């Protein structure tokens, strides 16, 4: 399709064309009406003048006979802009008047009408149009009284031409403007199409251009850009998952393989085969756990579980987790303290919130254990607290472990990131990133703070769930 046919087929152009059609039709109607009305008025005026002329001449004739009539006619034709006269005797000879001959159009019948004549003073001998009436004057005379309408005709003709040209000009300007406007709109739409094609071809970071006017196309571009941003985010998450699977699952898989190979090579009897197999299975179980966590995080980040949220009592949900971990903490030589505010309601997924808090408590116990026995005689504490803060519910788990340096805090929330200090401890490195994913799914956030000493992780969830958070963002 050429650029021109595309332009001609564009919606703005077709709209402009339709508008033009209607507009020209209306203009033609108006101009036509005005012309008709003007013509009517002028014709009436000519007839009135003629009638007055005829009446005046009849009076003169009645008063003074043919001689007086002739005198009056001669008197009148001397004035500029006079009417046309032709007075002839019974034999048809001209007696008086400014017409050179009896107009043949009027001689035929008694009716008045249009005739043409040549003005005596006009050297070009151009025939002019006039309207006249023949009158039978007693005594065998014939009088023709007429009025020149050439100028009127010219005027009407000019008017008509002007109207025609105006309409033509309007049409040209309209189509031209339609093309220009269409081209402008078409250009912007082409830019959108072009951008989408580039993005489809693989460059997900591309965005649809906007011209900043805030009009419909800009708003459309905004929506599309928001959609693209989300797609890019999801694609990045997907890529990250596959990258992580490639990098981080290969290591344990390799370990698993080595273990099986070693068992096969070195085993001296059924007992050591058995031992090798048990270890292989344990390794496989760990892999499965890691894999499950990864899948869960990916699914949470896809936002697919949002429908399974319901109002829960956070104190009882977190209390249950605390109760689950209390014996583990005690065995590790720690004190698990809970300060949970009662009577709150939180719209959330109970299972996921439990799992997130369990991960936090699990981490807290794991990292506090490192410092147990090195810090005086008092047993280190892990504090779990729950409090409402400004439309959100903040769940905090604080320990007195080694903490995380401020510059490492953001990184610690990412998948598989295990800060150097924690390399020696078991775990997949997915704990905190799962917490972050749960927070995001609920429309909340995770903060890592200093517990002086130790780490305080705050999981902040909007009271009314993700829908509520969205609502609050709209109204603020």
């Amino acid at each position, binding site marked *: 399709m050429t650029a021109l046919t595309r332009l001609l087929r564009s919606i703005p152009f077709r709209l402009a064309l339709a508008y033009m059609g209607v507009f020209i039709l209306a203009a033609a109607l108006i101009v036509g009406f005005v012309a008709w009305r003007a013509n009517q008025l002028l014709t009436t005026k000519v007839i009135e003048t003629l009638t007055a002329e005829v009446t005046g001449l009849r009076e003169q004739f009645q008063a003074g006979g043919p001689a007086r009539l002739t005198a009056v006619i001669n008197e009148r034709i001397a004035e500029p802009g006079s009417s046309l006269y032709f007075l002839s005797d019974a034999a048809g000879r001209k007696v008086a008047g400014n017409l050179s001959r009896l107009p043949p159009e009027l001689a035929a019948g008694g009716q008045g009408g249009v005739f043409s004549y040549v003005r005596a003073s006009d050297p070009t001998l151009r025939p002019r149009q006039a309207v006249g009436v023949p009158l039978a004057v007693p005594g065998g005379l014939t009088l023709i009284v007429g009025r020149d309408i050439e100028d009127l005709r010219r005027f009407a003709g000019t008017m008509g031409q002007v109207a025609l040209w105006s309409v033509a000009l309007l049409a040209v300007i309209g189509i031209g403007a339609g093309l220009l406007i269409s081209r402008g709109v078409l250009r912007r739409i082409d830019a959108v199409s072009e951008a989408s094609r580039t993005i489809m071809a693989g460059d997900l970071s591309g965005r649809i251009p906007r011209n900043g006017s805030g009009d419909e196309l800009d708003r459309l571009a905004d929506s599309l850009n928001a959609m693209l941003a989300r797609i890019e985010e999801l694609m990045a998450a997907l890529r990250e998952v596959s990258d992580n699977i490639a990098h981080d699952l290969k290591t344990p898989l390799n370990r698993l393989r080595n273990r099986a190979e070693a068992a096969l090579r070195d085993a001296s009897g059924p007992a050591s085969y058995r031992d090798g197999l*048990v270890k292989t*299975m344990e390794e496989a*179980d760990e892999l*499965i*756990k890691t894999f*499950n966590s990864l899948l*869960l995080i990916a*699914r949470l980040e896809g936002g697919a*579980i949002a*429908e*399974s949220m319901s109002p829960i009592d956070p104190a009882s949900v977190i209390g*249950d987790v605390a*109760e*689950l*971990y209390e*014996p*583990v903490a005690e*065995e590790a030589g720690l004190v698990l303290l809970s300060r949970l505010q009662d009577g709150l309601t939180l719209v959330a*997924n109970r*299972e*996921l919130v*439990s*799992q997130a808090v*369990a*991960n936090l408590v*699990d981490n807290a*116990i*794991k990292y506090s254990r490192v410092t147990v026995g090195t810090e005086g005689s008092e047993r280190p504490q892990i504090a779990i607290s729950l409090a409402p803060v400004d439309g959100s519910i903040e769940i905090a788990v604080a320990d007195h472990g080694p903490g995380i340096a401020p510059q490492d805090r953001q990184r610690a929330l990412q998948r598989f990131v295990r800060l150097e200090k924690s390399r020696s401890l*078991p*775990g997949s490195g997915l*704990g905190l990133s799962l917490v972050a994913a749960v927070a995001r799914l609920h429309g909340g956030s995770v903060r890592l703070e200093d517990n002086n000493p130790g780490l305080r992780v705050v999981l902040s969830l909007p009271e009314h769930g993700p829908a509520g958070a969205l609502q609050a963002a709209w109204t603020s």
Partner: protein
Amino acid sequence: MRVLVIEDDRETAQFLQRSLRESGHAADLASDGESGLSMARHGRYDIIIVDRMLPRLDGLSVVQELRGSGMRTPVLILSALGEVDDRVKGLRAGGDDYLTKPYAYTELLARIEALARRPAPEEQETRYTVGDLVLDRLSHKVTRAGEPVLLQPREYRLLEYLMKHAGQVVTRTMLLENVWDYHFDPQTNVIDVHISRLRSKIDKGFAKPLLHTVRGAGYMVRDGTD
């Protein structure tokens, strides 16, 4: 006990059949939903293991059809889909338990044994007795050799579940699901610590332990003499 395995993956199905036979159970195989449904209707099985994704008729529809025709045989659904929503859908369709792939055979065995011997709601006992350990479900009192044992509410529920399945292996996951109602896997083995606390309350000071650890599988409450 007679087990029907409806699973389209040949290798998995044969592994299950062989393992179930080794554990002393008879297992029949069906490789698609339709033949599985007709076998379930015409054979007399103690338990049905059904994969969620099957050719011809999917697992959930098989369970729905069975329940629709009034069959009450316990059903364990196996699935690669393990999210909370999927589990809820499976149980709502009429499944009695839901196990996510990949699973350990010991876990599967423990679950089907627990399911097959599950009494109907109307015939649930009000009192569990294992050796000289007695749990009264009406008064929530526990005694060992006539002496009262004081338990925390959660410890009581833990013991109740173990005693309900006395003589059967109960896995950690089963405990997490049934006693705590958690379907995730805590990273630390928290259950072991709860069990050792419970053990110190019911077994400490007695010559014959009743709460046993089954290596590589889970726990079992059992009177040592049987």
